[in-house]
């Protein structure tokens, strides 16, 4: 049901763009106003969401330990899996953010029936591979798109483009990451559909970003290789947006506006959705804290001062009475 609902939402978005541009001719709305509004929502939304998060205290020291903690010098400790200082935490976060270390573990619980049921955790590296392929392709695709938003185009964009198209298939040359992106996002979708436990916990908000990204990748691929649009006019429009000097060149195919509208939808939806894991991964206390609880005492910041009455104070208070009663005292 969740999948159908999300699919329906994306189809409606496509139809809105189609009707708005082809039917009603609202070029300025779909080519200028909506993209600007979406980018503003994205940037402000992400900032406000992160600030909101930062107002929540993290009172407990809760790094997940995935290796031996640093203790005595002759016990080997795991620098990246259980970091003891900032450098180790940076290394661990880099592994997490760049290589998805958490997914590269034995994550899949299974009941195996050898001699009676036995719980076995096995690896789930397809998810790791699919996720990694998807995210890296997405990054490269976004960086490649900078050629529409900069003039002159930065050197790294040109290098990425030529590496991405090194197979030199067709003209314009086939860009591998576009294809990998679509395949990986399709895998991530099919995984939700055909893996019963994952399907059970999947909500419309899990499917919607997948369908949106599928729609964006599909329209992009269609536009580049099949229903071509006049790319010079496209760049005039996009560069106009980037230079805050928007214009709408005539004669860009409607598929471009569908592509742009889906991207705007994704950008506007971003701060309110699970996609905020982009910022959230950096703010995960289970990953970004050093495992130094044997080195440093962590005190709950909202502990109130506890009133204590030490033995010395007690003796000072009752010394005379204790002596009278014949109880031994430490100080005379």
């Amino acid at each position, binding site marked *: 049901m969740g999948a159908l609902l999300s699919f329906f939402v994306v189809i409606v978005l496509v139809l809105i763009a189609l009707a708005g541009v082809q039917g009603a001719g609202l070029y300025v709305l779909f080519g200028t106003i909506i993209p600007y509004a979406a980018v503003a929502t*994205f*940037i402000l939304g*992400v*900032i406000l969401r*992160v*600030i909101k998060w*930062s*107002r*929540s*205290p*993290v009172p407990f020291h809760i790094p997940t330990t995935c290796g031996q903690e640093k203790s005595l010098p002759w016990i080997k400790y795991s620098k990246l899996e259980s970091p003891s200082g900032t450098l180790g935490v940076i290394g661990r976060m880099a592994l997490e953010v760049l290589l998805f270390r958490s997914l590269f573990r034995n994550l899949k619980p299974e009941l195996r029936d050898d001699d009676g049921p036995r719980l076995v955790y096995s690896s789930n590296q397809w998810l790791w591979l699919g996720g990694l392929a998807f995210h890296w392709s997405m990054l490269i695709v976004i960086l490649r798109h*900078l*050629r*529409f*938003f*900069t*003039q002159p*185009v*930065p050197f790294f*964009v*040109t290098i990425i*483009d*030529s590496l991405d198209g090194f197979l*030199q298939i*067709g*003209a*314009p*040359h086939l860009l591998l990451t576009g294809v990998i992106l679509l395949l990986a996002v399709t895998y991530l979708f099919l995984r939700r559909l055909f893996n019963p436990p994952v399907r059970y916990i999947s909500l419309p908000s899990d499917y919607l970003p997948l369908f949106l990204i599928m729609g964006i990748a599909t329209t992009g691929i269609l536009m580049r290789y099949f229903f*071509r*649009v*006049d*790319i*010079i006019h496209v*760049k*005039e429009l996009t*560069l106009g947006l*980037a*230079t*805050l000097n928007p214009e709408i060149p005539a*004669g860009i*195919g409607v598929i471009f506006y569908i592509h742009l509208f889906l991207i705007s939808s994704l950008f506007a939806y971003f701060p309110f959705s699970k996609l905020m894991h982009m*910022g959230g991964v*950096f703010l995960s206390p289970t990953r970004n804290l050093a495992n130094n609880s044997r080195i440093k005492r962590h005190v709950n910041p909202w502990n109130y001062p506890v009133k204590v009455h030490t033995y010395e104070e007690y003796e000072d208070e009752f010394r005379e009475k204790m002596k009278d009663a014949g109880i031994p005292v430490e100080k005379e």
Partner: protein
Amino acid sequence: MYDAGKIIIGLIIFLAFATFPFYSNMGKAVAKPDPKLNTPVIQQMKVKQCVESKKFMRAKHMQLLINWRNAALRRGERLYKGSDGRITEISLQNQCLRCHSNKRNFCDECHNYVAVNPYCWDCHFYAPKEANNEH
């Protein structure tokens, strides 16, 4: 706000990435590409018409060229029938570049604008006079 220093550094990095297209283009007036059609051969033509319409060529010339390559080099077909029925010889050197002999002011004008670097010139060479000037 807890860990304000780190949060603010993170947000600044986010802003630096997210607004890159805006500040990197700040205050730049970008000239639009203006491919020139003023070569001697074109000026002598009575009907200034490419093998297909201008609209088609603007959006799809790369498709046409790759089809021409496949036709000529892989299937040995050297004739192209345009959508208006005209028959043209398939040849980059003798057809396209005969009229558009100004690679720098024609092809490169748009290709540079959108940062595409077609590999036509790995095999073909363009007008030697111009080539001498560039290399």
